[in-house]
């Protein structure tokens, strides 16, 4: 049934995701969640944030989760599909009683599973029974990671029960051909296994108080054992790469210099893609620098419920990534582009860090809870990021003037851009966005775009952003509040009383769009020049730094590299279009892991041998790596 394969590709990962092991920086797409299961998982996630966003908890049950394939939220869904009333849960949410919300929501999901199991057992034909089993199993996904982490034996027992249950529903065949009867006795025995476990762990009258909300079974919580549930993001998250993929412009590469000849830069490139430099939960989720700043650009689709107020924005000092750094302010910011980074200091939206090195350390250690990076790691990361160049734009000279290829409207806009306005204190747009200084002035100005945090606050000054490349970085302003460059022009016209006519605004917008444009903003892929080929080239380039690190016997940095690259290479193979070549890539990843394994036991000879084999095999595979 080939159509099942592709049609249900995303569905495929339903239970897989909550049971996965070590996570590489290649996240897996999630299967759609049933509405009430999604609401439950969102409740667990939001319930662990401080301050707890109660409005979001209410919304999680009332509305479809972001990206849901269901048009209704959990409450409407339950109304149409279940006899279980949500009143106790809604009452607990209204009272903002965290423990009661957890208890009621947990019991609701457990009851729903039982409800569907009842339907399966009582169904008068196999198709209905199988549908009910499928629904029950999708609901069980709400608890599956907690059970797998805490009680592997029970997880296996229940896994077999689902298999037994589905197998014993029988088959209607087609027009009677191939029909097999259901085995009620087997069905009931299998459901008993599931229902008994639910009764003991998720349908209890009084749950022990939860410091952290999770799907851990009650009996395990009562035992006092410490169980680490692998971190997960709630339904609606999106940390996947941009599509189309932005083009990365590296200064050395444009000059024809091979990255493998720049080991410090290549190592920094690897760190930029490595979740290993962060702490949990970022590390376990595969979140790296490139998750937000992939290809040195903005990941406009990034969204994490409770941390993002809109796609492309995130609150990096909230409760989720590093509770000790939680500033208890709901202040997500629009992710900035890193193109031309060496020209755009100071760093941070308000320019709080003069040094890129200090800024980067703050990201690693404070924002994402990583260990203190070594000086070598900091040097490498900074060396790599300083190579980020702006996108070439043939409509612009190097000193920021329009070329002949720019359109007339943009030319008229250029004049307006350079015109002093009384509303700007007799300055022009160009006074801050200086054309021959990459359209910025490296200063912070309060233009009135930040609501004061308290009365009398003088905290609204933000670092002037460059205008280069901005045609591809919408939305705009620190909080992403303006969706288009035209909206930015309107904002300035209105708040600064510029007195622009409609034509003026259109011309100024055309100018901004021209300045922000690029000749080739995106990577071009074809049948064999695939995203995997790009990833393969990057990952083998990262690995090339072992040529530098092995002679130094630098175990720490070799292991960081092999742990990152071997896992990524293996995970990225799942995106290959040349499926027959996948086993070769898996073998190559294992070869790199073998380098790490040898280094771990200080068997340098074995490490050298595996590394030599890796290089030779990588060369051999390269042509088929797509």
């Amino acid at each position, binding site marked *: 049934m080939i159509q099942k*394969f592709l049609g249900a590709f*995303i569905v495929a990962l339903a239970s897989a995701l909550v049971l996965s092991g070590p996570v590489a920086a290649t996240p897996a797409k999630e299967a759609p969640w049933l509405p009430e299961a999604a609401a439950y998982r969102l409740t667990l996630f939001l319930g662990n944030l401080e301050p707890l966003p109660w409005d979001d908890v209410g919304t999680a049950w009332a509305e479809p989760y972001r990206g849901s394939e269901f048009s209704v939220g959990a409450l409407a869904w339950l109304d*149409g599909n279940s006899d279980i009333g949500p009143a106790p849960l809604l009452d607990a949410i209204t009272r903002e009683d965290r423990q009661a919300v957890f208890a009621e929501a947990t019991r609701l999901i457990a009851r729903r599973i039982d409800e569907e199991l009842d339907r399966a057992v009582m169904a008068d034909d196999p198709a209905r029974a199988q549908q009910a089993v499928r629904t029950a199993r999708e609901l069980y996904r709400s608890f599956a990671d907690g059970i797998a982490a805490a009680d592997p034996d029970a997880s296996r027992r229940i896994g077999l029960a689902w*298999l037994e249950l589905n197998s014993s529903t029988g088959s209607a065949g*087609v*027009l009677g*051909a191939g029909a097999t009867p259901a085995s009620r006795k087997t069905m009931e025995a299998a459901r008993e296994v599931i229902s008994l476990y639910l009764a003991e762990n998720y349908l209890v009258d009084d749950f022990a108080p939860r410091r952290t909300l999770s799907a851990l079974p009650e009996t395990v919580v009562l035992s006092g054992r410490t169980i680490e549930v692998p971190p997960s993001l709630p339904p609606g998250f999106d940390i996947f790469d941009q599509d189309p993929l932005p083009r990365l412009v590296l200064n050395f590469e444009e000059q024809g210099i091979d990255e493998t000849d720049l080991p410090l830069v290549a190592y920094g490139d690897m760190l930029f893609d490595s979740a290993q430099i962060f702490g949990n939960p970022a590390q376990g989720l595969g979140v790296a620098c490139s998750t937000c700043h992939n290809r040195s650009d903005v990941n406009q689709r990034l969204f994490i419920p409770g941390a993002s107020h809109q796609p492309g924005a995130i609150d990096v000092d909230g409760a989720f990534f590093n509770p000790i750094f939680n500033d208890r302010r709901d202040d997500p910011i629009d992710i900035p582009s890193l193109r031309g980074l060496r020209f755009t200091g100071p760093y941070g939206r308000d320019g709080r860090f003069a040094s890129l090195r200090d800024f980067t350390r703050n990201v690693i250690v404070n924002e994402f809870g990583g260990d203190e990076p070594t000086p070598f790691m900091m040097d490498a990361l900074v060396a790599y990021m300083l190579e980020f160049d702006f996108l070439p734009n043939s409509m612009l000279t190097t000193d920021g003037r329009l070329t002949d290829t720019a359109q007339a409207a943009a030319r008229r806009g250029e004049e307006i851009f350079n015109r002093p306005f009384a509303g700007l204190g007799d300055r022009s747009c160009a006074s801050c966005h200086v054309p021959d200084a990459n359209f910025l002035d490296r200063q912070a100005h309060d233009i009135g775009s930040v609501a004061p945090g308290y009365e009398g606050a003088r905290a609204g000054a933000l670092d002037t952003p460059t205008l280069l490349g901005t045609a591809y970085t919408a939305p705009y302003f620190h909080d992403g509040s303006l969706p288009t460059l035209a909206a930015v022009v309107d904002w300035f016209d209105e708040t600064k009383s510029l007195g622009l006519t409609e034509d003026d605004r259109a011309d100024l917008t055309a100018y901004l769009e021209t300045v922000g444009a690029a000749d080739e903003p995106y990577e071009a892929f074809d049948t064999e020049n695939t995203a995997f080929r790009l990833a393969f080239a990057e990952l083998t380039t990262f690995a090339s730094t072992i040529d530098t690190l092995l002679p130094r016997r630098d175990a720490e940095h070799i292991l960081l590299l092999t742990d990152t690259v071997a896992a990524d290479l293996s995970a990225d193979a799942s995106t290959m279009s040349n499926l027959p070549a996948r086993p070769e890539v898996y073998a190559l990843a294992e070869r790199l892991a073998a380098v790490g394994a040898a280094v771990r036991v200080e068997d340098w000879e074995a490490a050298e041998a595996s590394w030599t084999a890796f290089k030779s095999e990588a060369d051999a595979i390269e042509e088929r790596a797509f």
Partner: protein
Amino acid sequence: MPVHLTRRTIMTLIGAGAVSLATPLAAQDDALRLAFIPQENPEKLLGDIEAITGWLASEIGVPVEGFVTIDHAAAVEALRNGDADISFMGALPFVLAEAEIGAVPLLSEVYRDAPSYTGRIFVRRDSGIRALADLRGRDIAFADPISESGYLYPLAEFVEAGLVEGPGEAEAFFGRIFFAGGYQQAMQAMAEGLVDAAGASQYADLLLTPQQQAEVAWIAESAPIPSHLVIARPGLDAALRDRFVDAMLRLNEPEHRNKLGFLYGPDGYVRADGAAYDGVRDMAKQYGLLR
């Protein structure tokens, strides 16, 4: 057997507009009724159906209605009853429908340049299982008993290898045989170690997480299986049928390819070659599904 409605799928009708799961219009030659098989969230499918039927109606020049059946069997029933004119269908249910009601093959799906695929036997790489014979006395999960790539063809590999006497004799070779409910469930059961092997489509390992994909391998591959198709009820007006086929083939053109995503996501369609399904007919006979 009537088209089954469930509370879940009925719910999806609310707000679904033109598409429906309700009783289709009476048979007539100035409209087309398409039966769809739910492969994923039925509510999403209704949205997809609305999009594709709207386009087909504009191309063919008659109203096109789409509705969702609970499974292949119900879709075949709908064709027999005249409740559906055309249905999307797996190869095995098609040959059964052809034999029972004279269903006509119209189009075959194309994936990766071929209107065919294979079934495979997958195992965990660390299991030590290298050959089919190693699975003697071990547990296996298949997708569904009425599935060509998720049961019939993979099992035939054991027959071919002389390990299983024939259809109906498989239990003497294996420990336990499970029907997991789909490719993904069968593969997941194998990847998690609940069973030792899974029989599923050649592409089914892509349904696992990237990490799990690296941990599994296949040890046997079936003969090519003709891909899923689009079939018609016998007696459907030939001119209308031809206009439908022509419209569907236009989905192969670059400007219309994006609509393939509304139809289970094949890479395209070709005119069905009925003879290509002889192997499935033979297989169905071997399993006693076809006389």
